[in-house]
């Protein structure tokens, strides 16, 4: 039987967020809702990485003065996924900002937030 750990719950929650996020981005018609769905997707990826780095009773991965290397490596959570999460937060914010800026410009032009209206094919 599979043991239910915090890490496993983290993976499940991450999977739900990712699926809901992708579904929202693909199937919702409102552009702002699409962007909100993207933030869910981004959070899901972050949670996946955090769950990956999780260690039962782990400590923050900072080597403090007086701490032995062997003690540090046996107790600290994985440092690399934590770094990736930090980067993903920055990328998520940048992407959201750019998407919102584009949506504002298109809203001013078309007066609606419906993707089905705005992104309709245009004669070239």
């Amino acid at each position, binding site marked *: 039987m599979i043991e239910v750990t915090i890490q496993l719950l983290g993976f499940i929650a991450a999977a739900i967020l990712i699926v809901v996020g992708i579904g929202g981005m693909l199937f919702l018609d409102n552009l702002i809702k*699409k962007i909100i769905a993207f933030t869910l997707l981004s959070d899901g990826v972050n949670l*996946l990485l955090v769950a990956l780095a999780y260690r039962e009773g782990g400590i923050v991965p900072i080597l403090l003065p007086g701490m032995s290397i062997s003690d540090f490596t046996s107790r600290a959570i994985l440092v690399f*996924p934590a770094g*990736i999460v930090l980067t993903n937060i920055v*990328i998520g914010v940048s*992407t959201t900002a*750019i998407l919102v800026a584009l949506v504002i410009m298109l809203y001013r032009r078309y007066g609606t937030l419906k993707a089905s209206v705005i*992104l309709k094919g245009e004669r*070239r």
Partner: protein
Amino acid sequence: MIESISNLWSIPLLVIIPMLTAIIVNFLYDKAIKPIAISSAIVILIISIISPYGYHWFCGHPALNPETLTFTFNPNIFGYKLSLEFIFGPLQHIMIFISSLILLFCVILSTIGLTKHQGPYIALLFLLFMSSAIVIMVNDLYHLWIAVEIGSLIVVGVAAASGTSISHKAALKYGLFSAISGAGLAVSLALILGLTGFANISDAIMYLKQFNIGEMSTVLYIAFGFFVLSWMYAGGLAPIHPLKSEVYGASYPHATTLLQAQSKLMLVAIGIIMLRLFGMLPFVKEVMIFLSVITMMIGVIMALIQIDFRWIIAYLIISHSGFVTLGIGLGTYEGLIGGIFQAVNDIIYMTILLLCCEALFYFGGKTSTKEAYGIAKKSPFIATATILGAIAASGIPPFNGFQSEIILIQACLKEGFPEIAVLILMVSVTTFIALLRGIYRIFLKPPELQSYDDSNVDLPKVLIIGIIIFIVLSIIIGIYPDIVLRFIIPVVKEVLSI
């Protein structure tokens, strides 16, 4: 104790100089932008030419020897490199050189052509180059993901910069999809990291080769799936080609030269990484070949039905991306050489066509085959250059396209895919037909007397020089392919461990 390491000086410069220039020009007045931007582009070009080969351990983790408790950067001690690293080798040399040459012309043309918001626009061009340089130099999944994400955001910005409703829509569509694919690449990175414990691509490959992948194959397939998604959107492969082709068609033609160069670099870099990481799994190469074939076909068919010369070129860029991915997907010695060589050639001849398209903007800004007439009479040079570009793109000797396409055809025949070899020939012929249709209507068709403006137009000298340089490059590579192949062959041997 840490051993000394010999980081290559040029690698950080190729990243930092474009980044710093982007920051600086963003805040400058118009008159100060031009000298700084052009100087930076020249410096980048010089660095790409004179840089020796080597690596840069970018905030890497040195390996810990558990017995002596010493840190070391020597990869031979434990077998693994354990680090985030950038590599500058022959492949990076040729790819970055061509990209930086295109960057230089792009920057000069945008300082001439753009009257408003020059600073932010040129900043985007430098960042676009930076993301391309990182993607091709990187040897770890972390920086690969960051570069692909940054590259996507910059592509959105460059597309939106032309300011039309079509460009805004193209940018939004590409931005929304890149958000999904970028997150997918992050998941893929997490899966490979969780599976192997390594972010360094060479380390992860070594780990996967050393251990039985039987139980890991499901996770690897999921990671491969997300990689394929990123590959498709970064390079504009079918079935999501409309997103990228709209970006190409909606951007300024000079910016499209850099956009298509970035796409080709991403296709090559991500393709080789996919081949190395997942090549041992069944059906991986088949998936890559299938995507390539449908991209080649759909791209060229869509090009045939376009009425705007910019959009004809946009779809041909997509179609010819299929040549690049086909070679990489074959995964053989000839296939890889042909694929990478095609990427280099494709960048060159598409640049000729796009610069000619940029010239059309000086003749009234019309690129539609229904609106522009008789340009050949106004500028025989641009008409001739466009025809030469079309010949190069169609794989006709003595131009460069011929050399890479013949290698790809040989690779297909050798692997037992004669039908794909025939398809390459058909795509080449259809490319010529699609371009000739546009060329005839825009350049050669007699003008309607009422609407014809016979006034002479002075094209910027730098545009003419750029077109001449790329035509000369195309012919030289077509006659002496070894000039480029000597950069590609060592890389292919390394990838295939020959």
